[in-house]
């Protein structure tokens, strides 16, 4: 297999572009870290599953080759969605708990032939979306597809584990990171799953079980896998403390993928080590928050002069962009409020992570469509094209202005609180060194 396989078709390019646009609209920041590059050839990606709609979108964005997604067949029952799924090359999976007859022979057949063509498939082996920061027991589908394809003569299959880490999956404009791990080379490791002389087919239950366990181990290495959300949050803060220490300037943004990899590493430590680390981090952050500070603020050491300089920059930026931001606000405030209202509905976070971006696309899309239609009638095609170009710029101006004001407010608060905490600064820094020692020791 060569790089030629990476050569993408027109449709793949379009899918990637659409996914890129949506992802950049929905998230403020997406960090992708690939431990290994896809060299082409048959690949099966496996990933954790938090958000039914956003997970596949993020993976299409993060992976070098657009994957064909294996998804529950119930999704095909909605008319428009059905066409989209077919167009994107998705493969329906029948689940016994979904009513309606059907066997998965067709699914396995499509998956085998896709792998035989050297395609990239994507499956969520937990089989369900999940609200816990850990991996559910895996279904055996992924292992059966791989062993079955191999029994049908497909060579060179690799399984690529990926982990998606949401900062807050139910809110728009938050951050997310995608960790793409090292792949499992099936041809090289087949003897680990199949006892010598054993049957290398999906009928061999022991082999299916053992490959599924191997996939689970690799998935836990890249995906969030913590005891509970409290542990996940604390260890993530710990990883931030470490990476902030390693950064060139403590005011730089933390690389999310590196942070989540480190937090995951800490989460796999023995319970005793973990509780020591969690205890130290909690003590430090409690003392900080008593002062109204966080770790980034303590390290930023902002002076009155820096604050003044930042105020001037924000003010100039805000003034220059204000006319555009006002137009943007006038166009977008109704859809913004509608999406905000959707956020107040009571539903599980996994469901919300699907509903919220979808409704955002719908209401923003409808509003922009309406504006375009109006401009088209009033000023003709040229005007509509111009409006199509400018509307994203107007919205971007709103975002820039709002974020400039936020930055100004946080630096003001930091400067004021650091002044108030000056007497206890030495104590806090000593505490920070302690917690850092515990963390480095544990790594």
């Amino acid at each position, binding site marked *: 297999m060569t790089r030629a396989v990476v050569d993408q078709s027109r449709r793949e390019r379009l899918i990637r572009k659409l996914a890129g646009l949506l992802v950049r609209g929905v998230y403020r920041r997406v960090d992708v*870290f690939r431990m290994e590059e896809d060299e082409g050839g048959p690949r099966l990606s496996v990933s954790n599953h938090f958000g039914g709609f956003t997970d596949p979108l993020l993976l299409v964005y993060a992976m070098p080759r657009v994957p064909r997604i294996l998804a529950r067949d119930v999704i095909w029952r909605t008319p428009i969605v059905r066409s989209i799924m077919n167009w994107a090359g998705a493969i329906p999976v029948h689940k016994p708990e979904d009513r309606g007859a059907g066997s998965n022979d067709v699914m396995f057949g499509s998956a085998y032939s896709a792998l035989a063509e050297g395609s990239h498939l994507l499956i969520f082996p937990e089989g369900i979306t999940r609200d816990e920061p850990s991996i559910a027991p895996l279904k055996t589908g992924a292992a059966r597809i791989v062993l079955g394809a191999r029994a049908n003569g497909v060579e060179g299959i690799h399984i690529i584990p990926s982990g998606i880490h949401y900062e807050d999956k139910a809110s728009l404009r938050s951050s997310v990171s995608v960790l793409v791990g090292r792949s499992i080379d099936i041809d090289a490791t087949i003897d680990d799953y199949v006892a010598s002389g054993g049957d290398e087919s999906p009928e061999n239950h022991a082999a299916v079980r053992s490959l599924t366990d191997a996939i689970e181990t690799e998935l836990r*290495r890249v995906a969030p896998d913590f005891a509970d959300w409290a542990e996940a949050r604390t260890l993530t803060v710990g990883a931030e403390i470490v*990476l902030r220490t390693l950064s060139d300037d403590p005011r730089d943004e933390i690389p999310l993928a*590196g942070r989540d990899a480190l937090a995951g590493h800490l989460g796999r430590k023995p319970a005793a080590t973990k509780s020591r680390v969690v205890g130290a981090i909690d003590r430090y952050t409690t003392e900080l928050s008593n002062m109204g500070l966080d770790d980034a603020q303590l390290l930023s050491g902002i002076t009155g002069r820096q604050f003044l300089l930042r105020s001037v920059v924000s003010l100039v930026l805000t003034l220059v962009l204000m*006319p555009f931001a006002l137009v943007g606000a006038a166009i977008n405030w109704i859809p913004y409020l509608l999406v905000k209202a959707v956020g107040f509905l009571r539903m599980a976070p996994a469901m919300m992570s699907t509903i919220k971006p979808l409704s955002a696309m719908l209401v923003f899309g409808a509003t922009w469509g309406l504006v375009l239609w109006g401009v088209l009638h009033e000023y003709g095609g*040229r005007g509509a094209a111009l409006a199509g*170009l*400018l509307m994203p*710029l107007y919205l971007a101006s709103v975002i820039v202005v709002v974020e400039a004001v936020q930055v100004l407010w946080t630096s003001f608060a930091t400067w004021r609180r650091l002044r108030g905490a000056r007497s206890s600064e030495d104590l806090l820094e000593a505490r920070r060194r302690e917690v850092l020692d515990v963390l480095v020791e544990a790594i």
Partner: protein
Amino acid sequence: MGEFTLLPYVVAVPAYLVIGFTIFDAARRSDLVASRKALWIAVAAIVPILGTLLYLLNRPFDDPGRGPASMNARTTNLTALLEQREAGAIDDDAFALAKRRIFAGAPES
């Protein structure tokens, strides 16, 4: 009166910026040959707005996984080291040494 003075600013200024961006971006791209760059710049200048729309539709997205730009050397080293450690590619002593090296370079907090 106000809207008549504001309207040209709100529409014309960003329109010129958009055309300027197209020309600048096309000239700067490393994935286009010179003749293609010239073609796109000509299109953007002759058919102002539609040209830019066409250009943006044809422009590939940056690959998000190509080099995590936000990681400095120390962070990259630590991430790689942890990965080697978990893959069992490095023993206790070598790991401890490499870890000390990474954190020895860190600025005092």
